[in-house]
């Protein structure tokens, strides 16, 4: 909230000062440690800024308010927006400052209004609007006496004016004739009333000033009205929190209206870790039901709320706040001391991690909001100090102040919307039934440690203990040897899996938004039980202390149990299933697979790969090609199988696997898992899936995964270049291994010359830097890298072992850059048509199956005719 000293200046200049003191109230309000007495002078400033006292009161008081002299118009502190409070919250002040929202403290009630209606007298007994003409209360804006009050607070008078009259929602402290009524006090609806809260300097005590009520359409200008400030005002009963003294200068502009510009407040020093008293959670008026974006101030640089969404329902409020720093892992509603001794269940852990626009990690927390516009005591836990066991530094006192004036409604709350139970101060919430919070993280992204989304562990199975039919897993830092599922337990319709990790360093795991401790542990293994979604992926996070530091690692598991499969678990969600049917050759049966449907007939292949979590349907009927196969699985998945052994010199496949010697081990224990050599078998498997398809956890350990259609590809096979040109997808080629001179395809040649495509070197000597720059997601390399059986009269010898190793090395290197490697064996095909059949492979990869099939059919026709 910026302060407008310029505006104030303008206002002051436009005002004629006369009898009543014209006092500027400054924008940068600050705390004042001194307790206020009734007679507090307006200038308690400790700094040297001399605060001119107000012009003496007495002349102002008894004078009949009907003066033609325009009285001075003090500037209210409120900015002309819907701000219910007039005292602004300084962002620099770390100590909590209660805003001017009044508490129903006992205020001295003046005796009965002794309005006499005489023109000469105004009784300064209470806050009220009177007609300037006769001093009687202006009935159309009458004060609700029991709620209207004036108290001394922080060296100023805080006025709370409540009226049952709801025609006016704002007050301008000035003359009705003022053209620009720029600074007004806004009111908020308070039940059946309107409430206005603002501050005036103490010198305004016992005075009457011009005031004009108004609303969005008009101001009341039928007659002059005065706002009366009583002459006796008590100090507010609430203690002000200790704060650093700041200068508070009030300037009295001379009658000639030379205004002193508002000095800005001296920034207060940062708070030390002293405990702030927990303010009594007074209930200020909550916002009406709904979801609002709201500004939250904390006053601390390292603890900033960059986003807050507050939900109010039935008078109760909670907010999901995003902290700018990801260094905190827990909050506690209360003080740091209390937090240190609180049970773990009473802590508020962060619910999710979000990435800011500039790539920073930020965490969100769900906190109860007991009160608006007042600082809520909260303690924050620094994750690294916590992990270091530094009890003196891990908890830090903070405050959150939710600024109701900034609240913008963004949604309604539906009746059914479950109000999550953010933990109230100090009480333990029952964990198992706790709702996971208003913003559960989406499950399929295991790469964001710290938070886990809810797990749908419901199952129709009867209670009991089961053995998993299949289990696979993925994730982690690649250092884990293995994981197994010991059993599945179903209780009350919910399934949980007992998982053993082959590492003794795990201290806990998180799943389904909760923390689970090991049920068994040895120096080599950790066993725990977590809720699991059967026949689907479940995410969990493990906290390991290997490598000398506790840190969290995300994993994904897939627990398969046939008995739990309900019909249609693997159902296709295609709009038009008819379009996705492929006929099984020689029969009238069909399978439903979008890819198969485009490519042609299928047939059942008994040797098709069996993959955990994938249900086999049929394979592509191949006519002439010998070196590839395509297998189809439910959910429109396909596996491309490329033979890299037949008709090649692959002696290495006959040898037994040798253990490679581990390099010298550094201090930390290494638990390296033996990775499967994805390029080490007789054929290489590639799982083709579209962007959104969810794959069973761990499948990437069994084979290459290619998301189709591929957008950026590196091609180092001339044959493939030509096919892609034919299919019209040359645009997807971002890097090649030919240079502009020898390129067989004209358009690629041009692109090379224009440097739209990068020369990324050949398979023998790839330019990895260029590949990274080209952002390719797939590499298509020539089959020349494989050792072909030499002709009988060939002179050159082929070092097949070395070539195979090079091929694997290349695959590994491309893998580091997240590029699967397709070995294009179309040129190896003995039959012309066999080579043409490879069009289908590229059709699948680039989403142009129809084109591919067209080419193939034409080639087949031509062949027939010959």
């Amino acid at each position, binding site marked *: 909230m910026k302060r407008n000293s310029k505006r104030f200046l303008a206002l002051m200049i436009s005002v004629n000062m006369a009898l009543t003191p014209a006092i500027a109230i400054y924008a940068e309000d600050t705390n004042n440690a001194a307790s206020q007495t009734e007679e507090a002078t307006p200038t308690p400033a400790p700094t040297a800024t001399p605060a001119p006292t107000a012009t003496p009161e007495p002349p102002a008081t008894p004078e009949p308010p009907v003066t033609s002299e325009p009285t001075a118009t003090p500037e209210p502190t409120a900015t002309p927006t819907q701000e219910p409070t007039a005292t602004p919250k300084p962002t620099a002040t770390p100590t909590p400052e209660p805003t001017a929202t009044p508490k129903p403290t006992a205020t001295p009630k003046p005796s009965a209004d002794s309005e006499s209606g005489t023109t000469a007298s105004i009784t300064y007994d209470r806050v009220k609007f009177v007609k300037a003409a006769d001093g009687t209360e202006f009935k159309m804006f009458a004060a609700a006496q029991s709620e209207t009050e004036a108290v001394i607070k922080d060296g100023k008078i805080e006025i709370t004016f409540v009226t049952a009259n709801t025609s006016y929602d704002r007050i301008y402290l000035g003359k009705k004739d003022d053209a620009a009524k720029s600074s007004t006090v806004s009111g908020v609806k308070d039940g059946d009333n309107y409430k206005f809260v603002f501050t005036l300097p103490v010198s305004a005590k016992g005075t009457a000033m011009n005031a004009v009520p108004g609303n969005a359409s008009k101001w009341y200008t039928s007659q002059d009205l005065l706002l009366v400030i009583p002459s006796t005002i008590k100090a507010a009963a609430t203690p002000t929190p200790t704060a650093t003294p700041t200068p508070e200068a009030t300037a009295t502009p001379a009658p000639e209206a030379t205004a002193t510009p508002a000095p800005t407040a001296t920034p207060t020093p940062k708070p030390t870790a002293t405990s702030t008293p927990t303010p009594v959670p007074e209930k200020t008026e909550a916002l009406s039901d709904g979801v609002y974006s709201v500004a939250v101030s904390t006053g601390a640089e390292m603890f900033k709320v960059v986003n807050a969404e507050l939900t109010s329902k039935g008078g109760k409020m909670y907010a999901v706040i995003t902290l700018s720093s*990801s260094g905190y892992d827990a909050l506690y509603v209360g003080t740091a001391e209390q937090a240190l001794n609180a049970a773990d269940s009473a802590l508020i852990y962060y619910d999710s991690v979000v990435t800011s626009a500039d790539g920073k*990690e930020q965490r969100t927390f769900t906190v109860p909001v007991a009160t608006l516009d007042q600082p809520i005591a909260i303690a924050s836990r620094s994750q690294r100090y916590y992990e270091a066991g530094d*009890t003196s530094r891990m908890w830090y006192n903070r405050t959150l102040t939710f600024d109701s004036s900034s609240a913008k409604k963004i949604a309604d709350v539906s009746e059914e919307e479950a109000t999550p139970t953010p933990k109230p101060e100090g009480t333990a919430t029952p964990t198992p039934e706790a709702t996971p919070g208003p913003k559960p993280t989406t499950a399929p992204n295991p790469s964001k440690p710290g938070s886990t989304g809810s797990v749908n562990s419901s199952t129709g199975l009867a209670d009991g203990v089961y053995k998993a039919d299949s289990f696979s897993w993925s994730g982690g830092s690649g250092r884990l040897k293995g994981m197994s599922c010991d059993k599945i337990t179903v209780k009350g319709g919910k399934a949980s899996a007992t998982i053993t990790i082959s590492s*003794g360093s795990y*201290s806990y795991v998180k799943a389904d938004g909760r923390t689970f401790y090991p049920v068994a*542990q040895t*120096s080599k293994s950790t066993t725990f039980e977590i809720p699991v979604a059967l026949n689907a992926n479940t995410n969990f996070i493990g906290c390991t202390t290997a490598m000398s530091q*506790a840190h969290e690692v995300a994993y994904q598991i897939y627990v398969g149990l046939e008995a739990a499969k309900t019909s249609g678990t693997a159902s296709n969600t295609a709009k038009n299933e008819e379009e996705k049917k492929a006929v099984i050759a020689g029969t009238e049966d069909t399978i439903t697979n979008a890819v198969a449907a485009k490519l042609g007939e299928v047939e059942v292949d008994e040797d098709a790969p069996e993959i955990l979590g994938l249900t086999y349907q049929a394979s592509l009927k191949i006519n002439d090609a010998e070196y590839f196969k395509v297998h189809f699985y439910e959910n429109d998945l396909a596996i491309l199988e490329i033979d890299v052994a037949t008709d090649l010199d692959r002696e290495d496949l006959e040898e037994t696997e040798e253990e490679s010697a581990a*390099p010298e081990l550094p201090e930390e224990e290494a638990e390296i898992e033996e990775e499967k050599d994805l390029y080490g078998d007789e054929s290489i498997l590639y799982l083709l899936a579209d962007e959104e398809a969810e794959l069973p956890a761990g499948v990437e350990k069994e084979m290459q995964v290619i998301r189709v259609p591929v957008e950026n590809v590196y091609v180092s096979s001339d044959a493939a270049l030509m096919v892609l040109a034919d299919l019209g997808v040359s645009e997807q080629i971002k890097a090649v291994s030919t240079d502009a001179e020898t390129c067989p395809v004209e358009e690629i040649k041009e692109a090379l010359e224009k440097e739209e495509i990068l020369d990324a070197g050949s398979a023998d000597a790839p330019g990895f830097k260029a590949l990274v720059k080209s952002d390719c997601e797939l590499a298509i390399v020539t089959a020349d890298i494989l050792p072909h059986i030499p002709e009988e009269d060939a002179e050159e010898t082929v070092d097949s072992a070395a070539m195979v190793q090079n091929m694997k090395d290349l695959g590994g290197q491309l893998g580091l850059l997240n590029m699967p490697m397709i070995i294009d064996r179309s040129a190896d095909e003995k039959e012309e048509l066999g080579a043409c059949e490879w069009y289908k492979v590229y059709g699948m990869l680039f989403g142009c199956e129809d084109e591919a099939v067209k080419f193939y059919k034409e080639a087949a026709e031509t062949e027939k005719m010959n």
Partner: protein
Amino acid sequence: MKMKLRKQVIGILLTGSLLAGIPAAAPMQIWASEEAEIPALPGLTYEHKMDLTFAEGFDVYYYTDGYKLLDIHGDRQYLTIPEGKEAPEGVDDDIVLLHQPLDKIYLAATATMSLFDAIDAIDSIRLSAVQASGWYIEHAAQAMEAGEILFAGKYSEPDYELLINEECDLAIESTMILHSPKVQEMIEAMDVPVLIDRSSYENHPLGRTEWVKAYGALTDREEIAAAFFDEQAKVIDKLKDFQNTEKTVAFFYISSDGSVVVRSPEDYVPKMIEIAGGRYIFDTLDGEALKKSSVNLTMEEFYATAIDADYLVYNATIDDPIYNIDDLYQKDVLFADFKAVQEGNVWCAGKYLYQATDIVGNLITDLNLMLTDGDAAEMTFLTKIE
């Protein structure tokens, strides 16, 4: 010259006394012989060598015009080329060229950050292998939060694109990279030189800290590095004549499976205990123990030896700290039998020693204070457990 000589003599004497105090055991790393030849560089004249007291894993040779050669023993040599200058012609292909200023470093060796912090060179680092929340070092965390240092993927999965886009000029890796040689190759394929920090192989605790001078050389902050190191090494100086108290110390933690993890006798923590004037009670362990820094014992094995230890120091860098004696009993009631418990000499080491390579010397001071009933308020890492 006098000071240098004196320090060297002290160093030799101390090393000698240390070796005498430590039972014969094979050292963990054999360094290149001290008589290594001064590398000749074409067109450059050698001027002098960096003064080192405890570190044995590297040397820095200074040549004319500001060229320096950082020789990491058993590994590579790195030639720093001053800003605006060129690499000398005919330099051996094996020598890695580093063009100064090195201000876009990718730091994947967490122990090194504290050294950069100590010489005020954190602004030379642009990329980190650890997220902001993972840094115990305040300045590093702040720099990351301010966006001055970006997360570029952990050491085994660096973000190559970011390395290229940020024009990373040096990747400092820990020995963990030796597990992933392909990653190192790929980083180098991006034209980013790789330097493996081998400070963890130093036998002497201050030897680890002295690597600050290597990084000081790379960033032209030798003076700050030397001053910092001297400050840390003061503790050695102070204790050089200290008569060993002969009091025994056990340094351990209890892992969640109930086994007791102690440091191997060749590890640098027992060395620190010796320097501080105590005796590490597990001075003989099985042969296998010598290869690793920590050893798992059963409670019985631990009990048998440590029951008589004068001091118990709980290592909270891995496990949660203990706050009071009850926490210790929670782990095992047998602790009541221990001499150290009965005499009230139980302590807890509570900070991340592995990220605090720079103030490792403070642990020596702490231990010395502990052994001599000094003022606990002056300790950095240790707290007494009541």
